[in-house]
């Protein structure tokens, strides 16, 4: 089980690095799809089967397809030219700072004393328990989410609509 986690984590990390450092945005999008699939595999290891399926369907199947449609629509063929940086060594400084912060956070989070874990809960992440929690405890966020999606749809249509002269 842990070997599988390390394989999936390695795939997620490598594809994450490739997302950031690839020149063409199309390649970044494809590596991000690989990243989402690897993380969905990790969700399966963590007893979150429903969320893993939702991740593949929504994240890799809808959001990334939307990204690919926009990349194709904008027809960005040439890789981006490197603009002049205002400060010398800005990129390297950013990477070093982010790496330093990540090291500190990883050390802090792995050394934290948490309350002890609980025992096995049968059927933790399956659809029935998610539905049972979604429609009783989290009913209000569920309804608010529907309003949020409506607002997002209206906003996206208004923003991307062609103005007729």
């Amino acid at each position, binding site marked *: 089980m842990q070997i599988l986690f390390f394989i999936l984590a390695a795939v997620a990390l490598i594809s994450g690095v490739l997302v950031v450092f690839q020149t063409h945005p199309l390649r*970044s999008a494809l590596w991000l799809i690989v990243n989402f699939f690897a993380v969905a595999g990790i969700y399966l*290891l963590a007893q979150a089967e429903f969320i893993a399926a939702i991740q593949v369907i*929504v994240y890799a199947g809808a959001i990334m397809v939307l990204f690919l449609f926009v990349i194709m629509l904008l027809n960005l063929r040439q890789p981006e030219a490197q603009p002049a940086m205002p400060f010398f060594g800005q990129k390297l400084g*950013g990477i070093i700072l982010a790496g330093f912060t990540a090291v500190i956070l990883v050390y802090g*989070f792995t050394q934290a004393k948490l309350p002890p*874990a609980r025992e*096995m809960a049968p059927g933790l992440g399956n659809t029935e328990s*998610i539905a049972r929690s979604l429609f009783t405890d989290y009913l209000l966020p569920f309804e608010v989410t529907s309003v949020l999606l409506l607002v*997002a749809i209206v906003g996206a249509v208004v923003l991307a609509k062609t103005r007729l002269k």
Partner: protein
Amino acid sequence: MAVPLSYYLALSITLFALGAVGVIIRRNALVVLMCIEMMLNSVNLAFIGFADYYKAVDGQMFVFFVLTVAAAEVAVGLALVVAIFRNRATVYVDDLNILKW
């Protein structure tokens, strides 16, 4: 043998740092949006790790809503990128330095 919680958190923090580096370094607005999605994904991973550790389904509910909000945000963000491209013919954030002329 289950995966310990610290492994989930370490991977989540590393992916978050990678996404943050991408947002800072990259000049293409689409890649910046993709790195923001990677950061949200890493936060989802932390939530799932905690849901597995405490055997509570509330972590997974939170992931459900973060995922929905991320989808809505991507839709509106990409509509913005399309509108900007239609107006300025560029998606590089360096070129978006004046509001109106």
